[in-house]
């Protein structure tokens, strides 16, 4: 069979992948061979040869004579006019169906010739390493074009951002230069201007999505939404819980942890009934303004005396709190000299502070 041509694995622009099949052997006439491509336009007849007991299914394809412009192939000339495809892993039925479909459609006749016929034909017909290199280059060019197109809009944005960062930088250096001359009040004023421009920390490049107003509004909304759940939780909730709850409530409009934190830091400034508090251990919580530490300490103390000793886990179970919060409660009670600790390999246990009371 002499109709085959050497080609590389990449598809030419006018070609398309219809079906890929593995485990197929190709017979050049009766003998097995390794061949790469053949124009479908040459096909004159196909026949199915169903699988037998020790024989895999085969499809025989008969060809007409090749065109004169054919690229070199593995065999210069052959007396056979057909090939056989041997399906060892089955799949012949599907393949045959697609194959027949393609033959019926005769897509190769409808193909519009490429815009640049010289390079297209050249690339297509160039064999060997040069051909491969060219096709790789061609692909890369295409990819570059796609990428630069899709980033065109972004670049505009980035140029604007550059200006913004530049602006914030000049302002912050001005502040720094003038630090000695201007009073504390003026610095604060300046910084608040910067904040309202949406730049929390002008020294870093981090700019927030929107201005100060966004955070104040967010803070107001958070306080309104959280007041009730906070009351249900005993007046205190870890920031991570808050984050989950708020985002669950917001559905699609998710908040980033940073935005949440920024908004929470506004609570005090806005005189809202909720406050952000950081424990000594670094755990951040939101608590109601009405939530008094003395009350908590007193409660915990009574519980401790009641139960003689408590671990954070036990207290968490008792009060339906998270373990982290229970631990914070106990630590707070300890800090107020109302509890003392017993630290063993089994864990940390708290007792009423008999050292002081007895």
């Amino acid at each position, binding site marked *: 069979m002499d109709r085959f041509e050497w080609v590389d694995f990449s598809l030419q622009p006018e070609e398309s992948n219809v079906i890929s099949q593995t485990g197929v052997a190709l017979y050049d006439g009766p003998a097995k061979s390794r061949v790469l491509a053949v124009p479908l336009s040459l096909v004159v007849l196909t026949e199915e040869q169903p699988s037998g007991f020790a024989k895999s299914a085969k499809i025989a394809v008969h060809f007409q004579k090749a065109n004169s412009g054919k690229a070199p192939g593995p065999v210069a000339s052959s007396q056979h006019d057909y090939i056989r495809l041997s399906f060892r892993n089955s799949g012949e039925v599907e393949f045959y169906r697609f194959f027949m479909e393609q033959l019926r459609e005769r897509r190769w006749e409808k193909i519009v010739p490429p815009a640049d016929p010289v390079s297209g034909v050249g690339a297509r017909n160039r064999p060997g390493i040069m051909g491969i290199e060219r096709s790789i280059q061609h692909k890369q060019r295409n990819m570059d074009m796609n990428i630069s197109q899709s980033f065109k809009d972004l670049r505009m944005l980035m140029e604007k951002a550059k200006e913004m960062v530049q602006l914030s930088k000049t302002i912050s250096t001005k502040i720094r230069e003038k630090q000695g001359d201007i009073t504390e009040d003026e610095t604060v004023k300046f910084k608040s201007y910067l904040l309202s421009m949406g730049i929390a920390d002008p020294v870093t490049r981090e700019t927030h999505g929107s201005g100060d107003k966004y955070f104040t509004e967010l803070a107001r909304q958070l306080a309104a939404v959280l007041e009730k759940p906070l009351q249900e939780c005993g007046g205190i909730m870890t920031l991570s819980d808050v984050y989950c709850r708020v985002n669950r409530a917001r559905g699609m409009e998710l908040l980033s942890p940073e935005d949440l934190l920024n908004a929470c830091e506004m609570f005090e400034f806005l005189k809202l009934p909720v406050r952000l508090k950081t424990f000594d251990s670094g755990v951040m919580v939101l608590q109601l303004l009405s939530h008094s530490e003395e009350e908590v300490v007193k409660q915990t103390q009574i519980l401790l005396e009641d139960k003689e000793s408590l671990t954070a886990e036990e207290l968490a179970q008792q009060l339906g709190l998270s373990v982290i919060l229970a631990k914070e409660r106990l630590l707070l009670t*300890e800090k107020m*000299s109302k509890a*003392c*600790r017993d630290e063993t390999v089994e864990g940390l246990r708290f007792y009423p502070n*008999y*050292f*002081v009371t007895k």
Partner: protein
Amino acid sequence: MATFSWPWQYNFPPFFTIQPNLDTRKKQLEAWCSLVLNYQKSQKNYILDTTEAQNSPLFYNKDINRRLSTDGIQTVLEELRKRGNVEWKDKAGKQCIIMWRTPEEWGNLVYKYITDRSMKNTVCTLYELTHEEDTENQEFHGLEDWLLLRALQCLQSQGKAELMGDEGVKFF
């Protein structure tokens, strides 16, 4: 000698964890100090080896399975040192002398005994003071020589006594 009994803290598990709260810790250390002194007094023991101390009943309550850590023991002994009840025998802090009465207190006891008996301006031997029948009812009876010597040195610096060599002492 007064009979020794464990204080209530000894059966209170937090007693064996040095408390982070400073107020609480102060009370805890006070309790530890008096326990250590009372215990040593009941045992008539002056030397404490910190490595062995961890297993002594003083720092290890088997009943509640709690023991004071080595760091804890060091903290307690350091507190005692500040009060003048402990002196380290070596720099590594392995052995210490626990004086449940400071030399000064001992000196005062001896001086009181002497004045009660109008033995001022007389000369006694050190042996006489601690081992003679006369002093049998006194607390300093059987006191170790080095401690007695230090007690008397204290009195000497106050001008209440004068040592005469290593054996004798004269009270004023």
